[in-house]
């Protein structure tokens, strides 16, 4: 078993070049959206808009401007599957298509998935979607095929500013802590790490350095596991079953006695 591998994405050095998106698409042979015809979002330079079955990296553009556009800033973040230590998609998958690899990453086996789409609603981050080319749920594999032969994932390789760093999660966490410390020392006191410790879903093997609240980057402030609802829902359903059963008994038995 290799050490847990992951990504550290430092949003403060992302320049929005989208080299990671392109490298990901090329390596993983992902089809173009809309048959290659351009689909502009119209209100942003971000025309990818979200992660889905054919976009496994997405450079999110957060454009914070005053109404008169005199002041403003860009927040750029290359979003990707978080490869959660406790993964909601893996939890619910009824076919066993979603597995945890020897690199502690989460991978969907496309030849097993039957497209039930349970994982899409289960992912706390909205990462997964159906790839229309395969009819199966797909997402970042952390380049499982490249990892197996000792290469780093295509996005990290392509990133020109090292906003995306790949490596053993333990090393990445140390690197990230140091980076936060440095930013704080330089006066950027808003910098913090999202998902770098065990508190969030057991830890995100792909975690982020942010300088604003998570929701500004369209990240959930408090992601949860889908299984949290199973026990209370099941107990309440059993209670309902008992009540329905009793009502049935009363309805059909008293009739027998009365006649």
């Amino acid at each position, binding site marked *: 078993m290799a050490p847990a591998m992951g990504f550290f994405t430092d949003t403060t050095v992302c320049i929005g070049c989208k080299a990671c998106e392109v490298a990901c698409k090329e390596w993983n042979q992902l089809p173009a959206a809309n048959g290659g015809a351009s689909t502009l979002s119209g209100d942003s330079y971000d025309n990818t808009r979200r992660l889905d079955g054919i976009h496994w990296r997405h450079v999110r553009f957060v454009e914070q401007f005053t109404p008169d556009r005199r002041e403003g800033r860009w927040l750029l973040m290359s979003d990707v599957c978080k490869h959660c230590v406790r993964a909601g998609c893996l939890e619910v998958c*009824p076919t*066993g298509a979603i597995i945890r690899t020897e690199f502690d990453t989460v991978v969907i086996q496309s030849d097993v*998935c039957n497209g*039930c789409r349970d994982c899409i*609603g289960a992912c706390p981050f909205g990462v997964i979607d159906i790839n229309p080319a395969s009819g199966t749920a797909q997402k970042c594999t952390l380049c499982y095929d490249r990892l197996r032969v000792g290469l780093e994932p295509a996005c990290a390789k392509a990133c020109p500013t090292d906003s995306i760093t790949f490596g053993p999660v333990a090393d990445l966490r140390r690197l990230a802590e140091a980076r936060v410390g440095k930013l704080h020392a330089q006066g950027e006191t808003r910098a913090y790490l999202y998902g770098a410790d065990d508190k969030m879903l057991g830890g995100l093997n792909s975690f982020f350095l942010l300088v604003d609240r*998570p929701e500004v980057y369209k990240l959930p*402030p408090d*992601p949860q596991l889908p299984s949290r609802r199973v026990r209370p829902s099941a107990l309440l359903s059993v209670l*309902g*079953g008992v009540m329905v059963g009793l009502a049935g008994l009363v309805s059909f038995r008293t009739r027998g006695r009365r006649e």
Partner: protein
Amino acid sequence: MNPPPSTLFTAAPEWQWLIVLYFFLGGIAGGAYFLAVLIDLFGEVADRPLARLGYLVAFPLTVVCGLLLVVDLRRPARFWHMMLQSETLRPMFKAWSPMSLGSWALLLFGGLALLSFLAALADDGRGRWPRLAVLRPPGALGTLVALAGGLLGFFVAGYTGVLLSATNRPIWADTSVLGLVFLVSGASTAAAALALLGRRRAAASRAGLTALERFDSVMLVLELVALIALVVSLGGMARAWLGVWGALLLIGVVGLGIIVPLVLYRRSLRTGGLSGAGAAAAALVLVGGFLLRVVIILSSESI
């Protein structure tokens, strides 16, 4: 400033009309089987035709449910991956995944519903194998099939709500009472369906129909309470229903599907059952049960 609910940051699984229909028919199938068992085990001999009707309804509906689910897959030919691991052919089962558990429950329920279906046919003397009647109560084997099938019927009617909650989607994952709501609604719609069919085919005695209407009235009250609990448990997320969905829930599900049928059932029960009011009530209960699933599934899908 309070952070927004985390369920808003997720993607929709695109469970649409096929799933709505499955939830509706699955509830009726499970509920009809449960009612048939109840009548077989505790009811009058005179109502055995009503119970028979329940078995005759449950199995075909379960087949339709299975087909709906297979067609809804993006890779329908791989439906069996839910049952067997595709490479090793070992059983695929995850007790903690409601969809895995539900797939197995639906398969097993379908098997038992088939046995009861055959027994119900044989009971009439019309089947080719009259000895299959032993698969229906009274008798030890028949009772065993009925009890196991009745429990699985409950499961099939209710697990769908638990499945929705075991995601991270808005509304679905913001409450724990959906399983309860669907279970009660399944029992209610099944009673309505049996009351309607029993009346048409004169399969039910007047007393049997009265019992069904009384039972359904209790279910409707329970459903109303469960729906109130649902809205309360949603907290701030209930605001997602301010608008068309809320109107549909209030007018369609609660008004037309619960309150009006309750009034009509009352009138029907006062006149001793078999009135047109009872039939109208049952039809409205079916409409309300369908709309309930439309609102709950599609309102989350549209966020």
